[in-house]
């Protein structure tokens, strides 16, 4: 009794296994054709980037260095100067060394002008260490200090 029953249970489990894979054979794919199709990355927290505010068409970094101070990994290099006739500072250099960034998000929380955010880039790849340093002002043109309409 015992051995036959065990044999039957074992044999039946094999049939169940075939049923499981057979079920998935006739179902559709769950994968993406990756380079041709892109996944929805809107909830992805990628490398930090500067916000482009629609009202001004530019970022609002005042080079306060709050992010530099709060960053646990010393990722940021921020420099700024005060443009003529403006009360606020403007960033002239904003570098993020992504190879040391742990995406903790403290800079996003601490930014007084809310001009830092997570990007949705998820497939970055580099050949050299130097390329991991992102110039966050690059998207804002040749003269990032005065690009757009300063606030």
């Amino acid at each position, binding site marked *: 009794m015992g051995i036959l029953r065990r044999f039957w249970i074992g044999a039946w489990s094999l049939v169940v296994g075939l049923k499981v*894979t057979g079920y*998935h054979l006739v*179902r559709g794919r*769950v994968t993406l054709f990756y380079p041709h199709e892109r996944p929805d990355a809107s909830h992805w927290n990628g490398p930090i980037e500067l916000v482009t505010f629609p009202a001004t068409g530019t970022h609002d970094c005042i080079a306060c260095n709050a992010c530099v101070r709060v960053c646990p990994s010393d990722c940021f290099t921020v420099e700024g100067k005060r443009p003529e006739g403006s009360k606020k500072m403007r960033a002239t250099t904003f570098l993020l060394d992504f190879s040391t960034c742990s995406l903790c998000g403290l800079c996003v929380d601490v930014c007084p002008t809310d001009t830092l955010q997570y990007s949705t880039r998820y497939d970055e790849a580099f050949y050299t260490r130097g390329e991991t340093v992102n110039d966050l002002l690059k998207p804002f043109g040749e003269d990032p200090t005065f690009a757009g309409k300063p606030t």
Partner: protein
Amino acid sequence: MTLLAALRGRLAGFVGDFLATWLLGAVLIMAFLAFNVLFLVLAERKLAGHFQRRVGPMEVGPHGSLQSIADMVKLLGKQILTPVATDRFVYLLAPLLIFLPTLCVASLIPLAGAEAFANQPYGLLVIVALSGVTVLSIFMAGWSSNNKYSVLGAMRSVAQVIAYEIPVLLAALSVVMIAQTTNLRQIVEAQHNTVWYVLVQPVAAILFFIGITAETNRAPFDIPEAESELVGGFHTEYSGMRFAMFFFAEYTNMLVLAALGATLFLGGWLGPWLPGPVWLLIKSYAVIFVLIWVRWTYPRLRFDQLMSFAWKVLIPVALVNLVVTAVLVHGIG
């Protein structure tokens, strides 16, 4: 068919009657088997993909249909390495030799009533004997590579094929007892008069299926080439076209044994409307589909589990099945 006959007649003028038939048959079988390997590799990859809710190769050709041709070109273009420490003669001989028994067996499967390439009175026996030879070249490959993984894979392969040859033979023997002949063509004709033997001999059919899964070194019995333990098993040291020859032999062996199973249990070329060889191919590919299905369902067995499964379960069951068949055949007939 008439074109073939004309071609054979033309050839016979140059090299004689026997050689013409031999050449034409060999070329036809080789051409078909080469096509079959390309198709099976693609089918395996596509099916594996779909079993895992992927799609398999998609980039080369429509739905990846030319992928195996691209792979073949890649293998042809690869450098062929010969490691220094090998037993050179045996090392070079093994990939050539592994293909020979499979090709012989392929020529012995009856395609249809009259067009069988070789009508042997002891066809089944010859096939079983020849498919046992495959293991020799596997062992040659493993031993001459002078690599511990290769030797381990080859030794496992020998132990496995010897163990699983017995239930395959016993399962086939119970069919022979009913059909009262070892001639494969007559076995199919006997099924034409009664029913397919899978209905008469379900236990033998299952044993045969398990046996050919092990004999073709496929999962869950792919112990000779267990990737996670043995790198590539017996063909670890082979590269380029030499590796492709092992691959070729493996997939050809799959088709041949599936065709043998279809002949013994599924009525061979019998079937309505379509010509005989087409039916045989359909049935063979159905068996291969189940082989692929099984491969992508079950995990690999451990070596001792494999051996004890053969010796403690399959062979006793096959023997009991054989004795019961003998008693019944004697009682009825």
